[in-house]
C-alpha cells in the first residue's frame, strides 16, 4: 500500500511538472492534438498506478516524450501557418449574412441541430441576426451579429465613464500580500494609516482590495478564521 502512495506522489510531481511545461493554454483552449495528448497522458499515468509490477519509468518516459513533442509542435505551429493548418485544420465560416453554408456544414459533418445548439449557447436564437458564424479549430463557434443586432457599447451611446483600474489584492484570507503592495507602490505604513482612518487594524482585515486611485474595498474578519 505504501508503495502505491509513493508511486502516486512521484507521478503527481511528474504530472505537475509536465502540466507546467505544457502551459495554461492546454487547460482552456485544447486543440484536437492537445486533447489527445492530455487523454494519453492521463491513461499513461493510470497504468503504473493500477499495477505496481509496471516500472514507473516506462510511463514517465512516455509522458515526457509526448509532452515535449507537443510543446515543440506548438512552437513550430506558432512559426509556420502551414504546419498549424496541417495539425489543427482551419476555421470555417458556417453562416454568412444570416445564411447557413450547407457545404461547409456537410464538410464539418455538423448537423443543423448542432449548429443551432452552438448558437443558442451564444444566446443567439435567430440565424437571420448572424452576420458571421465561424467554427473554430478547437470546436467552438464564434458568432458576429449583424451591426443592428449588436448590443450598444459605451462609445456607441457616447457616455462619459471614468477609466477603471485593476483592483490589487492586498489582503486575502487575512494574509498581507507584500508583492501586490509593492506593485501599487504603497508602503506598509501608508496602508496602516489608511486602515487606522477606518478604525481598523491589519489583523482585523479578511479581504482588502485597492485600486490605483487608492479606492479600497474592505471586508473584516468575522471570527471564524
Amino acid at each position, binding site marked *: 500500500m505504501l508503495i502505491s502512495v509513493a508511486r502516486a506522489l512521484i507521478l503527481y510531481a511528474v504530472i505537475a511538472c509536465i502540466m507546467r*511545461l505544457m*502551459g495554461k493554454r492546454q487547460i482552456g483552449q485544447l486543440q484536437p492534438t492537445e486533447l489527445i495528448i492530455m487523454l494519453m497522458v492521463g491513461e499513461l499515468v493510470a497504468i503504473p498506478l493500477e499495477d505496481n509490477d509496471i*516500472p*514507473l519509468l516506462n510511463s514517465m*518516459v512516455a509522458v*515526457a*516524450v509526448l509532452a*515535449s513533442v507537443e*510543446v515543440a509542435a506548438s*512552437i513550430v505551429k506558432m512559426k509556420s501557418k502551414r504546419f498549424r493548418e496541417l495539425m489543427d485544420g482551419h476555421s470555417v465560416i458556417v453562416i454568412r449574412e444570416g445564411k447557413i453554408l450547407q457545404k461547409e456544414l456537410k464538410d464539418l459533418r455538423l448537423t443543423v441541430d448542432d449548429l443551432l445548439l452552438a448558437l443558442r449557447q451564444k444566446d443567439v436564437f435567430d440565424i437571420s441576426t448572424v452576420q458571421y458564424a465561424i467554427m473554430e479549430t478547437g470546436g467552438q463557434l464564434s458568432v458576429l451579429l449583424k451591426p443592428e443586432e449588436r448590443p450598444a457599447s459605451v462609445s456607441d451611446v457616447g457616455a462619459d465613464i471614468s477609466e477603471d483600474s485593476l483592483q490589487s489584492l492586498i489582503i486575502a484570507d487575512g494574509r498581507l500580500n507584500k508583492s501586490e503592495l509593492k506593485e501599487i507602490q504603497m508602503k506598509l505604513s501608508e496602508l496602516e494609516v489608511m486602515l487606522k482612518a477606518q478604525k481598523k487594524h491589519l489583523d482585523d482585515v479578511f479581504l482588502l482590495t485597492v485600486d490605483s486611485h487608492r479606492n479600497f474595498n474592505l471586508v473584516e474578519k468575522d471570527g471564524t478564521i
Partner: protein
Amino acid sequence: MKRFVAAMVILAIAVGGSIWMNVYVKNRVEELVELAETLAETAKTKDMDDAQSALDELENLWEKSTTPLHMFVIHRELTEIELNLHMLGSYLDGENWALFREGTVRIKESLEHILHTQEMSLRNVF
C-alpha cells in the same frame, strides 16, 4: 523559447536515457544469460562444486542487477527469475539434477525473453 528549450532538454534526456537503459539492460541480461548457460552445463556434468560456484556467481550478479532491472523491466518477469533462482539452491542441496537442469533452462529462457522484449525491433515497436 524557454519552454521550447526545456521541452527539448526533457526530450533529449528521455531519448538518451532510454537508449542508455536499453544498452544497460541488454548488457546485464546477456551477462546473466551467459552465467545461466554455464550453470546449465554444470547440470549436465553433475559436478557439485562447479554447480555451486556457478550458482553463487549467478546469484551475486543477480543481486547486483535486480534493483536497476526493476526500474526498467516488468517486475513479475524478474520475480519469476528470482523464485527459480531460489529453487535452484534447494535442488542442488538435494542433488536433484533433473529439476536443477530444468530450473536453469527456465531462468535462461526468462532472461532471453527479457532480452527480446527490450530489443529495438519492428516486432516490439508494433
